[in-house]
């Protein structure tokens, strides 16, 4: 169940020739893959970093790596999990460095949330903005768990494989992460969670 409106999930069959063309440096093929997946990658990075500028940078870096290393990506397997792993790594790198982190937190506090497209755009924007802000206060390991569960809608075994943690620990880690996230959201005024 994916609630995003415009994600067209490409089949591996459709991806394969595009990836092969991309490995030969074909701009059109790269652009097609970009337009198909950038929104999802950017949103993932945004949830992981909490800052739109840094997320844009991380998402673009992931696609530059795709363009440079397309010959190393197995074209018979779905592309998105590869992109997801790369963008998670990019986000971790972005978050290194205390000074950058603090500057980012200040920006996050000022930012509005872009691109509302729900039935009630204002309410949806405010809700997502609050969640993004709350997520940015979580330790990054817990933020990754929440994002993979709720944005990426992965099963526990897939989360474990993506993050390299034992599958048996996902449920208890998610419990800790959600408990903290709830505390933060309550502090930010989410009455319905009390």
């Amino acid at each position: 169940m994916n609630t995003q409106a415009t994600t067209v999930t490409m089949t591996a069959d459709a991806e394969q020739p595009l990836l092969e063309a991309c490995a030969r440096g074909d701009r059109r093929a790269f652009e097609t893959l970009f337009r198909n997946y950038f929104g999802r990658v950017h949103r993932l990075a945004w949830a992981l970093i909490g800052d739109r500028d840094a997320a844009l940078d991380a998402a673009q870096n992931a696609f530059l790596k795709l363009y440079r290393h397309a010959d190393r990506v197995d074209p018979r397997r779905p592309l998105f999990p590869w992109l997801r792993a790369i963008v998670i790594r990019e986000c971790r790198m972005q978050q290194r460095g205390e000074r950058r982190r603090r500057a980012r937190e200040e920006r996050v506090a000022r930012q509005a949330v872009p691109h509302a497209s729900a039935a009630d755009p204002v309410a949806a924007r405010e809700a997502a903005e609050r969640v993004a802000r709350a997520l940015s206060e979580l330790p990054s390991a817990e933020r990754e768990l929440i994002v993979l569960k709720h944005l990426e809608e992965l099963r526990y075994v897939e989360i474990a494989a993506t993050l390299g943690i034992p599958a048996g620990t996902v449920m208890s880690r998610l419990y800790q992460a959600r408990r903290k996230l709830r505390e933060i959201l309550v502090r930010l005024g989410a009455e319905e969670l009390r």
Partner: protein
Amino acid sequence: MMLRSCEEYRVLLMGYLDGELDATQRAEVEKHIHSCADCSAERGSYENLNRMVQAMNTYTESERALDRYWQQTWNRAERGIGWFLFGAGAILLTGYGVFEASREFWTDPTVPLIVRIGAGAGGLGVLVLLVSLVRERLMLRKKERYTEVER
């Protein structure tokens, strides 16, 4: 049946809400929720939390934003290629320039043989180091573990 604490049930509640429990565990959690007001309230609270987080999913890029991001990304990709070619060209031209500029030195009979051998070995060394550096960069790029990515 094993008796669990409320805290343990709350961990299981995650699996329950995420659809990750087997039938036996699910029945156990349901039974506890029916008899425990606190855990029942927790269930409602986490359902709300999950819905709230899911709200982030309704965001999509506008076409215009996507166009702009594509342009930026493509420009960066092109720039990467540009820098690579520029670097390769610079090394070639510098090497050629150094060789041409010192042509006289190599053919000058008054320069002792030992000095020419020394200079030749030194120049060769610099060249080997440069090539090794470039090769390391390329190898590093290839080995950046993008193939080992879990998926």
